[in-house]
């Protein structure tokens, strides 16, 4: 009995050391803040780039003389999807942002955004293709131009169809930002490793950090379900 109590005490103490002692929770909070900042920036850039690339690929498909734009988009998607995000981050950090006072968080946000954009582009493309061609024709036959049809008729329906896939991509993105510590950013994962090196007990901080990611992703999933519910209006029978 004593042994069990003793064990609980020890575990409690180690988590106390990993979280409370010397205000260590401040490290997690700073890491969490950076992780959220990078994720948020990357999510915005990724969504913007992805939709842009998908729409460009769709609308220049049949226009002669604009093929090179489509090829450029294809090249972007191919390169980004074909190389590891860790290398992309290092290359962008060392190659493009070499100034001394570079803000690493913005670099990471841009890099993960560019990375995510390629995947979002593919998801959005699938979404656009899932909408019946007749919807496009109906819009055009009423006198709307291609872009008006795309953004008032096709996109709202496509976004609804791809929301689960898009949510999945953004969940992956949130967790992928843990790679950011490679360019000297104290994100959530790095904060946990740092505390582990201070307490000589690596496991508790890692588990605390994992729990933080889990809570973020669960919250994000709930938000997505809420949005999906709101968008279901037209489907009610």
């Amino acid at each position: 009995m004593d042994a069990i109590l003793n064990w609980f005490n020890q575990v409690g103490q180690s988590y106390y050391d990993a979280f409370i002692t010397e205000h260590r929770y401040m490290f997690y909070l700073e890491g969490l803040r950076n992780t959220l900042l990078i994720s948020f920036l990357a999510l915005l850039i990724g969504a913007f780039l992805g939709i842009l690339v998908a729409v460009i690929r769709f609308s220049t498909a049949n226009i002669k003389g604009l093929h090179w734009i489509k090829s450029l988009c294809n090249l972007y998607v191919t390169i980004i999807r074909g190389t590891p995000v860790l290398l992309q981050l290092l290359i962008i950090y060392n190659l493009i942002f070499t100034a001394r006072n570079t803000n690493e968080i913005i670099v990471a946000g841009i890099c993960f955004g560019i990375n995510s954009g390629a995947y979002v582009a593919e998801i959005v493309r699938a979404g656009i293709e899932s909408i019946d061609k007749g919807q496009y024709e109906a819009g055009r036959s009423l006198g709307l131009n291609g872009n008006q049809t795309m953004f008032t008729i096709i996109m709202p329906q496509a976004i609804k169809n791809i929301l689960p896939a898009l949510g999945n991509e953004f969940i992956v993105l949130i967790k992928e930002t843990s790679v950011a510590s490679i360019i000297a950013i104290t994100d959530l994962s790095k904060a946990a490793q740092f505390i582990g090196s201070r307490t000589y007990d690596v496991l508790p901080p890692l588990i605390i950090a994992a729990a933080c990611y889990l809570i973020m992703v669960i919250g994000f999933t709930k938000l997505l379900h809420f949005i999906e519910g709101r968008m279901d209006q037209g489907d009610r029978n």
Partner: protein
Amino acid sequence: MIETKNLKKQFGSHVVLSDISETIEKGEKVVVIGPSGSGKSTFLRCLNLLEVPDGGEIWFEGKNILDSKNNINVLRRKMGMVFQQFNLFPHKTVKENITLAPIKLGVMNKAEAEAKAMELLKRVGLPEKADSYPKQLSGGQKQRIAIARALAMNPDVMLFDEPTSALDPEMVGEVLELMKELAADGMTMVVVTHEMGFAKEVGTRVLFMDQGRIMEQNTPEEFFNNPTNPRLKEFLSKVL
């Protein structure tokens, strides 16, 4: 009103339209019939450039619509189109379906467009469906809303692409009835259909298409009573 000159269209090596020259006058109700794959839908879809022809000219109200100087988006406002599969916008209510184009294109303000929508909904007999979504409607109701949506832009001509082919038999009547009313009001209409009764009753001219050509055309009485083209005789003997 609409004139095509030597209209050509082919998909790969398959010739869908070969040298179609045809004139449709204001107020005419032209009914196009023919077997599947005869090119009649492609012909209709060329008239508002949903299908881009490979050769020839199309003139609408004195303008060559294939000339890139003429903005096709503006010309299309005057050509309403009704599709076999309705193509209502599922994420919009019935009223929004009708008001979307007039508002988006700045032809009417919101209040005008909504007043027009309600007037059209009364005309097609569905004023109570204004706030419903397309999924809540029957096929016949959907097609009547699609007709109202096309009418909202005050078109000069209405193009119908097999408007009753996707409907349950008992719903065909309500759509044809509406089309008859439209015809009686003087609308210029081009109708691709398999409804021979409609062709006889409403058409001012009937065209028979086969293998990408207009094989025969005449007034409905002559067309159905004294067909001369052997392919048309064979076709009529099967469908009548």
